[in-house]
């Protein structure tokens, strides 16, 4: 026995509410973030991730209050991302109660941010989120701004680079699969997992429990992240863990 593979429910938060869209658009309201995080904790979630997809900067501080409320009631690791641009942003989120902070667009625009933040708060607190889209067989490109802008960066190369810069973990999302319920892009997950020594969280496309198991056993992910299958009550986190355990995957139950 040893380290368990992690199941991480993800909550996309805008203007203080949890929403879930398909391919990053068409948002549906799914409830109060703190209440949902508590429910996942009760079900045995290994961590919870909040992605703040609020567009307007004047509503950004709402996420700090949500993080504070969550951290006072939920005693599992909490990762927060979305709109993080500076080391000061990282500090604010950690001080509000986040354990890890995830950065995406800002890391691409300013790779020094990853290095600076990691040096200041430790690499265990820094997650780099990579949104990748397949551009050729066995080749994926990094996109930013919620999938709107292409960067010209190769996803596997970028994963290696952010590890060198000081990322402690990679949150890897397949843009092609996100919201489709067709399962993770397993080739992408495997390529990135094999390329780095830091943990990789697979994300994007989970529609059933087999997809979660595949992310670990075929994709080689250290953790699997899903949103809608948990939000809309199709499965509980506990069901997901029992399913994975029955397939020989070590989980915390």
């Amino acid at each position, binding site marked *: 026995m*040893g380290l368990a593979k992690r199941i991480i429910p993800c909550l996309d938060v805008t203007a203080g509410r949890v929403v879930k869209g398909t391919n990053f658009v068409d948002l549906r309201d799914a409830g109060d973030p703190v209440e949902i995080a508590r429910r996942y904790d009760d079900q045995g979630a*290994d961590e919870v991730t909040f992605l703040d997809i609020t567009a307007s900067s004047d509503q950004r501080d709402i996420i700090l209050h949500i993080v504070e409320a969550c951290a006072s009631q939920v*005693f*599992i690791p909490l990762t927060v991302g979305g709109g993080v641009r500076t080391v000061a942003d990282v500090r604010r989120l950690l001080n509000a109660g986040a354990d890890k902070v995830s950065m995406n667009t800002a890391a691409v625009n300013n790779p020094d941010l990853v290095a600076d933040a990691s040096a200041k708060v430790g690499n*265990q607190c820094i997650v780099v989120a990579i949104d990748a889209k397949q551009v050729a067989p066995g080749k994926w490109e990094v996109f930013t701004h919620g999938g709107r802008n292409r960067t010209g960066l190769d996803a596997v190369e970028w994963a290696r680079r952010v590890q060198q810069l000081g990322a*402690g973990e990679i949150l890897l999302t397949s843009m092609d699969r996100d919201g489709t319920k067709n399962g993770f892009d397993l080739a992408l997950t495997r390529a990135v997992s094999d390329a780095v020594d830091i943990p990789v969280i697979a994300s994007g496309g989970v529609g059933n429990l087999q997809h979660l198991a595949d992310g670990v056993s075929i994709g080689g992910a250290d953790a699997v992240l899903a949103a809608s299958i948990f939000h809309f009550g199709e499965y509980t986190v506990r069901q997901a863990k029992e399913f994975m355990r029955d397939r020989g995957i070590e989980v*915390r139950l």
Partner: protein
Amino acid sequence: MANKAGMVAVIDYGMGNLRSVWQALVHVAEGREVIVTADPDIVASAERVVFPGQGAMPDCMRELDARGLRPVVLDAARNKPFLGICIGLQMLFEHSEEGDVSGLGVFSGCVRLFPPEKMFAASGGRLKVPHMGWNEVAQCRAHPLWSRIGNGARFYFVHSYFVDPVDRDCAVGMTDYGIPFTSAVARDNIFAIQCHPEKSAQAGLALLSNFMKWVP
């Protein structure tokens, strides 16, 4: 200064965010006061002391000394219910491979890096370092702080170094990650653990609650 009844001091030497530790302790405090402090007088007046740590051990030792907290930490480790967490466990040892730095020497032994040549799972897969996530803690010795926690319960870990005590009798918890390592030690009034009880859901809260009531 007399001990302030029930007060718990969380020692803040400027390394990392102690809010999670504070919040989890408050959650189980049952009205006791929990103070995050860098003031040696407050630490000295506390009934019990929590010694957390985050980041790299050389930085932690430097900041501890820069704030003049070493004497009061050593005093607490001799006299009061004392809980070390993560780097707060490692700093109690004599020496760390991380930055080749000396620790407080409360326990004999070293802090070592997970050996790269041993980092393979039973299935043959490579084990990543840092050791991050939920792993089992085998209770190799009975202790009041294990009360209501199942033997082998999982706790949340994030670390690249582990303690290697000279006196094996102080080990109360063992965990496997490539190699078996000591994940918790205890002696007299001291209990110290490598994982993060403040982030370990029910098992972690039970441990903190046990600490709050512990009469060594």
